[in-house]
């Protein structure tokens, strides 16, 4: 019976020492002392050999109970110590949350012209338009003739044209002058020719060139051109499409106004105005005249019209069977209006302090 008493005494000692253990290291020492191969419980059990056979199960039972108890005490004690350590940390010193975040490489920025082009194109993509492109060094036929702007026509004055030194092109002459496209409209000709038959619905962004350089013009700028040709396309469709575009680009409340204008490749031609995105179309801001729309409440943003029958004929379409509309806009102007950029030159200086704002 001594052994049972010894075990009970041992358990009592373990309870006290484990409860008082201050840290993990002490706990580990206590584990070795009580539960180790050479520990105190093992030592007690080694004395079992001298016991009578009928006493052994009872002593063994007590020994197991004590071992389990000590084991459980150790687990709880470890948890207690861990908890108190965590509690201490949670109450301890703060980090400096005001130190700047670690940014090894700030993200680059997309040019506002690209950004705006992408926004415009995305809207028309959602309406089912395909994206088309074409050469910037272009033949006179595609840039002018096919678009109902014959040679010696005053409409050519509307666009001051850059011509290319053809001797550098290594091509034989006689195919008409080579120029820098003055608008993205030649892409619509190429797209219709490529398609071969209606319907054709494309949107064509790109660089265009005109010989003009001052406060409000750069010799290179960007346009997005669109065309929708098929049976039964009407002027009402043109109005609806561009009104939908204006709302998607400038915001849901944007109003549009369409008035007659002239572009040789459309008829009837139309200028599309949108309600001023800066003053909301009222013409003034906090009492002062709105400089963006010059107080009119309207901004000219789009040229458009029904595709001229001569243009359809030029690409082999039958104007009595198909109709269509075309539209075009200047990307820089759209970007200026959308982002409130006041100076056109900013687009081409490529000053990172400007670019990084987009």
């Amino acid at each position: 019976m001594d052994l049972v008493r010894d075990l009970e005494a041992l358990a009592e000692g373990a309870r006290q020492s484990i409860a008082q253990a201050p840290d993990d290291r002490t706990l580990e020492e206590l584990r070795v002392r009580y539960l180790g191969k050479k520990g105190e419980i093992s030592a007690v059990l080694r004395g079992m050999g001298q016991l009578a056979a009928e006493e052994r199960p009872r002593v063994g039972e007590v020994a197991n109970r004590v071992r389990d108890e000590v084991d459980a005490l150790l687990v709880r004690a470890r948890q207690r110590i861990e908890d108190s350590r965590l509690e201490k940390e949670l109450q301890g010193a703060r980090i400096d949350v005001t130190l700047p975040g670690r940014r090894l490489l700030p993200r680059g920025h997309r040019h506002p012209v690209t950004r705006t082009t992408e926004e415009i194109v995305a809207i028309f993509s959602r309406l089912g338009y395909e994206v088309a492109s074409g050469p910037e060094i272009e033949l006179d036929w595609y840039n002018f003739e096919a678009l109902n702007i014959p040679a010696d026509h005053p409409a050519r004055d509307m666009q001051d044209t850059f011509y290319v030194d053809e001797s550098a092109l290594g091509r034989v002459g006689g195919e008409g002058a080579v120029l820098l496209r003055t608008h993205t409209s030649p892409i619509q000709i190429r797209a219709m020719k490529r398609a071969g038959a209606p319907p054709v619905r494309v949107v064509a962004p790109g660089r265009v060139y005109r010989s003009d350089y001052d406060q409000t013009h750069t010799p290179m700028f960007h346009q997005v051109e669109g065309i929708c040709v098929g049976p039964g396309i009407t002027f009402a469709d043109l109005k609806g499409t561009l009104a939908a575009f204006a709302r998607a680009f400038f915001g849901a409340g944007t109003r549009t106004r369409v008035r007659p204008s002239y572009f040789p490749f459309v008829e009837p031609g139309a200028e599309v105005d949108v309600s001023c995105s800066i003053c909301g179309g009222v013409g003034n801001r906090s009492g002062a005249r709105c400089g963006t729309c010059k107080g009119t409440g309207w901004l000219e943003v789009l040229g458009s019209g029904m595709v001229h029958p001569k243009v359809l004929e030029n690409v082999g379409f039958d104007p009595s069977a198909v109709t269509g509309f075309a539209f075009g806009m200047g990307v820089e102007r759209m970007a200026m209006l959308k982002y409130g950029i006041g100076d056109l030159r900013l687009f081409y200086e490529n000053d990172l302090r400007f670019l990084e704002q987009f």
Partner: protein
Amino acid sequence: MRISIAWLSAYVPLPPPAELARRLTDVGLEVEAVERVGASLDGVVAARILSSERHPNAEKLAVCQVEAGAGTVQVVCGATNWKVGDVVPLATPGTRMPAGHRIDRASLRGVDSHGMLCSAKELGLDDDASGLLLLPADAVPGTPLAQVLGIEDVVLEVNVTPNRPDALSHLGIAREVAAATGAEVSYPEAGLRQEAPAASTALRVTVEAPDRCFRYAARVIEGVRIGPSPAWLARRLEACGVRAISNVVDATNFVLLERGQPLHAFDLDKVAGAEIVVRMARAGEKMTTLDGVVRTLSPDDLVIADRERASALAGVMGGGDSEISAGTSRVLLESAWFEPTGVRRTARRHGLHTEASHRFERGVDPEGVVAALDRCAAMIATLSGGTVRRGAVDAHPHRRKPVEVTLPWTRPGEILGMPVSRKEARAALQSLGFELTSTGPRNGTFRVPSWRLDVTREEDLIEEIVRLRGYDAIPETLPVIVSDTPAPSLEAVVTERVRQALEGAGFSEAVNFSFVAPGDLTPLGAGSGAGIPLKNPISADLAVMRGSLVPSLLKVLAYNRRQRVEEVRIYEIASTYHPRAADATDDTPAREELRLAGVASGRRHPVGWSAGGDPLDFHDVKGALEPLLETLGIEGVRWVPGGASWLHPRSAATLSWPGGGAEPVVLGVVGEVHPRVAAAFDLPRGVFAFDLSFAALAAAARPVRGHADVPRFPAVLRDLAVVVANEVEARAVLEGVRAEPLVEEVTLFDVYRGAPIPEGRKNLAMAIRYRAGDRTLTDSEADAAHARIVARLQADLGADLRG
């Protein structure tokens, strides 16, 4: 075109100016500005001089009491051409004078002066500075001067598009106003009085070039006295921006602005042989135009000649020899119809753009030629006291048939997308002067008015109908079209991924002009593309369509450095321009190659509190391009030492993609910009650049890839450090490791040169992960694989194992 409302109101009843401007804009004649004439005289009123006395302190000044509407005021005056009772202009305090200064209440030598009495010159009215401008005695004191002088007017700046030459005159605008408002145009009477003998006895006209001059009509006015025009006429012209010159010339300009028909007056006594020959110029023929320039003519120039020589560039500008002068007494007045494209060619050839050429090249009313001639002849007679000889000399080789256009009644509705009744269509067209000549259940045929040369087909009629009816009436609908939903193109997908990869690597996008200075391309040396020169560049700096994107980007880098922006990473995606290949078959005149280029300089990471400060190098740029290749799914790219002549020969690489073909595909080059090239762009060392072919990237891209299963069995990790000669490329060592089939991945985590590694050698430390796909690898299998790798590196690369 400037349209005077005072003038316009003589032909048609007008709504108020703002309303008129809106109505004109609504019918397609955009009013760009509304300007009040006489505004420069605001603050100046008529004042009657009631009394005057000598200035007490200045002998040459008078102190006047004047009545100026609101009472009597005192003004000090220095002029002497007046007497008490005269009415003169008074600039009241606050008036801004045309010269720019402001009139204020002032004390002149101790006497108060409440304004200033003005001369005509001081008011900017004419050059007369001899004394006060004396106004009519019945002018009511206090009345604004502009009203007293009758020069109150509003001028509309109308943007007339090239298709509407008929609107380049006051009568033309009046027609549009009448159509828009339902009013009637009252055409002015010519009031021509003719006297014998007949003009044909004094003048002969021959048209030798009938395909360039469809009609040439002339009248002769004799006994004219050249002098200044009356004030009303000068005012009309000046409101439209035309300077008054003399009664005869002013009459021609008046009729031009009234009817859009250019006219020309010759001094008949200077027309040799009293004969007009309308002919093509002879090669090398010379003439002096009114602007004093001696011009060498082309055989494509149409001239108005007399028996001896050319005396006018037809439809463009008259000649100095036959100009109206102070002594002119016999006038030959010309009114003609010249073929538009010919006039345009001549005007452009000689760099001229005149009121006449502007209208002729757009097309004047062929039926208005003689009416304008008669109107102008009558005016000249009235203004100059001359007499008009009986009859016009009218050479009319090319008679024009009226144009008729048939309109299917349903067509306007089909095009516009709204119902347009037959009645509406007819009413709109008739109000614009179109005449219904025949009508049926399906179609109506309209005779186009002679001034509407732009109308030739049914679509033109529909435009007339809708612009008059107003675009607001058209509903908004969306097109119904059967077509596929387009998938984004490979180019669009590649572009977006490239942009995102570069933006993730800190590169911002630049957009540069496509043209550069020729010298910008030279530092890059041959092979980078000389570009395509322009014939008419806007400046020498923008003269060549660039053959490479790199120079523009280097300039942007230099620009930003000058702005003290040190950390620069920029890229551009744009076309480069090259002569087309000899065997090209498409119909594009040049070869345009889309490229992707970038430049970088500055620190690897921005300086922060925890890291940063080192300058970036080749491997930073490589580290930007590797994820780009990964996101495009381009695998197996080899980084071959050596790039391009504009790159540092020892610090550059060519990206070579094995592809599927016989030859590897060159994707582009990357490296440090050659120090001499950098210097040419005012850049220091340490500028890195890449220049890749977008088409090659797109061709190599596999943006949608398959996937491999996630490994099911554990890996074994081993580190390996080997020492190899400096010249041994890391690629060779890594490929040697990867040649072992059990290697799943190898990461090079250190490159070390220096003690204790022998001179000329380097230590490469790698972490290798071994794994078998079908079983758990044992340690001994991994050890064996490791040993095979060591043996291979020793044998192939002379590597030493470092323990």
